[in-house]
């Protein structure tokens, strides 16, 4: 029993069906409580952001709530661009009303009167059903003035992303809503103080917001019975690659990678490596498959769970080929604002491309390491800081396989070179 966020049987529920399934009961209950009580409950739940950064949500909410301002904003970040990630797609397509109810609760808690739902352009097919849901909720009195006779006003506007990975970064997303290119802003000041149009703004990922509903429904204490001591609740994992059943799975934190792959995804054969957290996540060899999926287990590896994307690669995947494609992605998606990320990604992509054609030397590995370190330490935002997590971890476990390409051989034979070398 680990379904706090979605039922696998959920389909796009109509307003009536959702209401019959106790939809909006939690909201009605919450609207009778003082906002601070809600924030205390969220704090007690130990909920942390699910988009990748893992910041405690209660603290973020409390920072916005404390601010004096004529207007405050709530932004739901559905610009799910991390390669391998499609969990927010599932949350928004299976049951957008749950996400919207969570948005209204969060807005009430922090005192926001205007919300934005920023959905990536690639999910344009979600726009019509979401707009329809928003319109129905306005008619039913769950959005607009004086929601459920509580005196609380709140409405939500839909905004489209239009093909920029960087806009998943919260300040870049804010720039985009304001109608500009998605260039990240300096932090501090944090968005909780100076966000959208300079006003206090809470930016949360879709999955993070979706957690608010079960926390307020069950209470923080029951919520914390899911997961581990340091990672409360459940997590959605988007699993793709060489598993039998690809898809989104909800499991409590503390589940091992092996359990997720074997018990939920129907298993996988001849695993070579697994990348956890999308293209900006770390690459683990098959020998580490018993690692626990929790923030504490990954922080021991100086890593995080990122967006919860899990890519399983089998023996047929050339690790260098994989790294090369990943580097090309970051080179394309770097916004170009800061030098370490803009130039670093270009160099790394070039070196990996050369190596895959047998051009280079053993010293290139040092250059890759050094460049990665500079990018991690000196990049302006999370994009550059994490772009080489996969590369650095892969160098730790697969250096020999990468260097084999200099002998014009590859273990797999799927890239430029014929199969060869000792495995």
């Amino acid at each position, binding site marked *: 029993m680990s379904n706090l966020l979605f039922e696998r049987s959920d389909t796009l529920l109509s307003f009536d069906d959702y209401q019959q399934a106790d939809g909006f009961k939690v909201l009605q209950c919450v609207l009778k409580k003082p906002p601070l009580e809600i924030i205390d409950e969220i704090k007690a739940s130990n909920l942390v952001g699910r988009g990748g950064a893992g910041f405690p949500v209660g603290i973020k909410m409390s920072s916005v709530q404390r601010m004096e301002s004529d207007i405050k904003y709530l932004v739901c970040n559905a610009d799910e661009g991390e390669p391998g990630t499609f969990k927010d797609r599932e949350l928004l397509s299976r049951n957008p009303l749950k996400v919207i109810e969570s948005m209204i609760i969060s807005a009430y808690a922090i005192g926001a009167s205007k919300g934005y739902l920023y959905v990536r352009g690639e999910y344009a097919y979600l726009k019509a059903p979401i707009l329809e849901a928003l319109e129905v909720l306005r008619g039913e009195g769950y959005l607009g003035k004086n929601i459920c006779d509580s005196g609380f006003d709140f409405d939500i506007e839909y905004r489209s992303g*239009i093909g920029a990975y960087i806009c998943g970064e919260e300040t870049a997303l804010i720039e985009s809503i304001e109608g500009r290119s998605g260039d990240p802003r300096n932090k501090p000041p944090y968005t909780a103080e100076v966000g959208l149009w300079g006003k206090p703004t809470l930016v949360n990922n879709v999955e993070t917001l979706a957690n608010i509903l079960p926390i307020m429904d069950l209470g923080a204490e029951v919520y914390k019975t899911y997961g581990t001591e340091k990672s409360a609740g459940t997590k959605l994992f988007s699993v793709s690659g060489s598993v039998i059943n690809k898809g989104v799975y909800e499991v409590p934190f503390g589940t091992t990678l092996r359990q997720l792959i074997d018990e939920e995804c129907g298993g996988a054969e001849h695993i070579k490596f697994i990348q956890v957290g999308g293209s900006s996540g770390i690459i683990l060899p098959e020998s580490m498959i018993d690692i626990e999926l929790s923030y504490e287990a990954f922080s021991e590896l100086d890593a995080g769970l990122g967006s919860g994307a899990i890519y399983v690669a089998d023996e047929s995947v050339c690790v260098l080929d994989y790294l090369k494609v990943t580097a090309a992605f970051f080179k394309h998606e770097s916004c170009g604002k800061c030098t370490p990320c803009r130039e670093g990604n270009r160099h790394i992509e070039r070196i990996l491309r050369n190596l895959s054609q047998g051009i280079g030397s053993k010293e290139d590995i040092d250059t890759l390491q050094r460049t990665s370190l500079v990018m991690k330490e000196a990049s302006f935002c999370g994009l550059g800081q994490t772009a080489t997590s996969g590369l650095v971890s892969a160098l730790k476990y697969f250096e020999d396989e990468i260097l084999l390409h200099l002998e014009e051989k590859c273990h797999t034979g799927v890239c430029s070179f014929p199969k060869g070398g000792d495995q």
Partner: protein
Amino acid sequence: MFSKGGDIMVGKVLEIVDKLGRKEDKLIEILIELQNQSVYNYLSKDVIKEVANLLDISETKVYGIANFYSMLSTQKRGRHVIQICNSAPCYIKEGQHLVTIFEDILGINIGEVTEDKMFSLEYTSCIGACDQAPAARIDEMIYGELDRAKVFNILASLRREETDE
């Protein structure tokens, strides 16, 4: 509604700008809508000039936005835009061969438009369909688990729809 170049008429720009709001923060929504309404899925010089004029912002800024966001285009494209996902999960799962399949059937290279202006072929970053890899996006639809036969059928049915119209 369209002038002979297949582009949106200036009057249409005014209509969309007024519908979405003459505010700078609506700029991106306006550009998306204008591109959607353009037969060749792009923002022409005239359209950009008119948007800048109506919102009272510089043309450079509008160009900047159109160039920054990869789903907006200032180059004339096909009536249908085919975007092949080249992020790792799709690329590894036959995605690199998918490009060749499209190129073969359409007789163009990636980055080009077919002679009849029906299709343009380009790459895209992850479209969030990794569970259906290899995947491509054609206009607003996602097509997954693609192979030669499927691609052939999809393109044939899109062509049929166009001839029926």
